[in-house]
């Protein structure tokens, strides 16, 4: 198994197919990162919101 390109430059251009390949991988990467981050942000937002409510409830007692 070998590196299939002569140079880093030819790895980027991929004989003219570079823009297509890199665009496809780039868009996929962005969507996957979004999928991974958004539930973590949801969780954090929930914890903050609930903590605020708990403190408000404790104060009013």
């Amino acid at each position, binding site marked *: *198994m*070998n*590196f*299939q*390109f002569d140079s880093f430059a030819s*790895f980027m251009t*991929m*004989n*003219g*197919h*570079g823009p*297509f*390949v890199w*665009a*496809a*991988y780039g*868009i*996929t990467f962005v*969507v*996957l990162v*979004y*999928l*991974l981050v958004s*539930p*973590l*942000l*949801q*969780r*954090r937002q*929930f*914890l*903050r919101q*609930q*903590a*605020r409510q*708990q403190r408000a409830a404790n104060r009013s007692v």
Partner: protein
Amino acid sequence: MAWQWFHRLGSPRWFYEKTQAWLPWLTVITLTLLIVGTVWGLAFAPVDAKQGNSYRIIYIHVPAAFLALAGYYIMAISGAIGLIWKMKLPYMVMKSAAPIGAALTFISLVTGSIWGKPTWGTWWEWDARITSMLILFFLYLGIMALQQAFHSRDTGDKAGAILALVGTVNIPIIYKSVDWWYTLHQPASIKFVGESTIHASMLYPLLTMVIAFYCFYALVLLLYTRAEILRRESRTQWVNDLVAQATRPDNKDMPIKGGSAV
């Protein structure tokens, strides 16, 4: 007694606590496989004799399409379990599976479109496979919208589950579309029965990426479902305790003011 595991599986709290320990492992496995598969497919797999380097899109296009379909099964089966046994957890899984499935269908449509330009000379064609995948995308969006459209969460869950079950008609159509209406999209290269029409040097990185996407799907589905469990169980004591624990001022993982750790 024999059904105890089934009822426990329906308990959001049990699920939340049980899956906690899986997350670090699953994250490590997923990231490793994704990196190995991507580097392998982009740089080390041989160039395709007919398509040149554009074929390298296969290493994300096919895994994303696999999971777009497998994710639909997971969503529809969860919905069916929710409808039949009236359990809470399956509906939360169903709700979580919809945006993930939509995102993966989006990836397979967009990467397919980008792949189509240098290969077929067009960004888009109303080919049977492409059209049925577009319908799948709208089904996912429709289920998400329908579930939110009711004042009562129960009604929304049931309506979403019924639409998900009706939509399963589309799945065998997607699978068979390349054989029934053979126009543009090529037939499957990987076959479970009989010889695959793809060389081992290209098949192994592809299989790596398929497994990586399955792991990624499992990880993200767990994360979405866990966030949904917290929201829906927010009135219960165990979630209150969890919130108090996670947001204690001395807990570095979850500072209330500022900070970025999750």
